[in-house]
């Protein structure tokens, strides 16, 4: 999948699940703040990325995936 299409798909599934406007998901934006995730609901993002894109984000890798830009890169590299 082209990266632009992937970014659009990631934004769409996150927007639907976490009920946040796509326009708020800029590459620099903090994922936890933007999606209003706490330590519990962060797990839901991990599960969603796995089920939609088949990409697993391990607990140790989560610390590097802080922004949407980092998430796009992470998923793109592993697909």
């Amino acid at each position, binding site marked *: 999948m082209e990266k632009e299409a992937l970014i659009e798909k990631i934004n769409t599934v996150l927007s639907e699940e976490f009920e946040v406007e796509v326009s708020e998901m800029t590459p620099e934006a903090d994922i936890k703040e933007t999606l209003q995730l706490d330590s519990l609901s962060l*797990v839901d993002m991990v599960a969603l990325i796995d089920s939609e894109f088949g990409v697993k984000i391990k607990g140790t890798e989560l610390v590097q995936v802080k922004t949407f830009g980092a998430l796009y890169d992470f998923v793109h590299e592993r697909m």
Partner: protein
Amino acid sequence: MYKRVVITGMGIYSCLGKTLDEVRDSLYTGKSGIVVDPQRQELGFRSPLTAYLEVPDLKKELSRSQRVYMPEQAKYAYCATVDALRAAQIDQDFLDKNDVGLIYGNDSSTIPVMESCDKIREKRDTTLCGSGAIFQSMNSTVTMNLGCIFKLRGINLSVSAACASGSHAIGLGALLIQNGLQDIVVCGGAQEVNPFAVGSFDGISAFSTRIDNPTQACRPFDRDRDGLVPGGGAATVIIESYESAVRRGAPILAEILSYGFSSNGDHISSPNVDGPTKSLQMAIARAGINLNEIGYINAHATSTKVGDANEAKAIYRVIGDSRIEVTSTKSQTGHEMWMAGASEVIYSMLMMKNDFIAGNINFENPDEDSQHLLIPSKTINKKFDTFLSNSFGFGGTNSTLIIRNL
């Protein structure tokens, strides 16, 4: 000195309606909520019959972070509780300033358990179960969700007592209020309505297979009954000390006169006669009333051969030839299981408040036990001021409530 316990609000989410008015009309007209479920047919169920109701979409009412912890029965319970609190004139400000309790019946939460197990076996990664799974999976899911959503600060307790759960929840709440430990308790029962919740129940041939005419399948006390039909939803009653209700200027609908209970100490699925008899006798003795003061008995009768027969024997043993009308509203709703004890209090309350007794639909021919009871098959207009409601469950748990109009 025991305190008097009154009912000040009710709410229900049922196959007979989502509002008290809808449910009252369905009861009066003898509507059945039973359908054939194509999904159960596809899954190879012996009986595809079930009550039908849709899962409410609560996106507008609750945030994602509230909804993600709620299985379907917690959503039903939320709807019923919003309505019950509103009817009791209790708002969030009151809940924030007073220690209101919560006791709710619930005895399963199948879908989240099943999905979590599937996920673990498939993915070998427990993270992928998601954040809501643990909170949705537990039997206490309804009380943990409602307690957090409504910010309740009194007792918070789930009752898992099979098909008597909702009735015991109300009885236990009443005991706390009687003893001055709580002023107000939100009580009720909730029941999930999905094939997987009742698949193994179907497997022991407990369900009716009269699928040609679903609305006639559930026929408590009828000679030709062939099993129960599962149903569900949720029902909430707000119970309160009389003093608290008067102090608040709340609508006082009825008084819970007594709660009787017993355990059969016998077979796990076959009910006996002695256990229910004891529960009935205890409730009547504790209410301090004469039999002729009871105007209506809402039976537990689920439409199973042995269960209905033994309840008929127990009722007859207790009331003799008193000629009190006895019906089972399960003829219309199917068996609402963990919810039934609470919903049937509301069904009976609606009848008492509107001067009628809903007919035990599909009761065409009595058998040797039900012939001793006065069982109207059609709705009758009758004023009554006191009713008795039975609920019995697997393992032989029995609960009886007696409630008087105010």
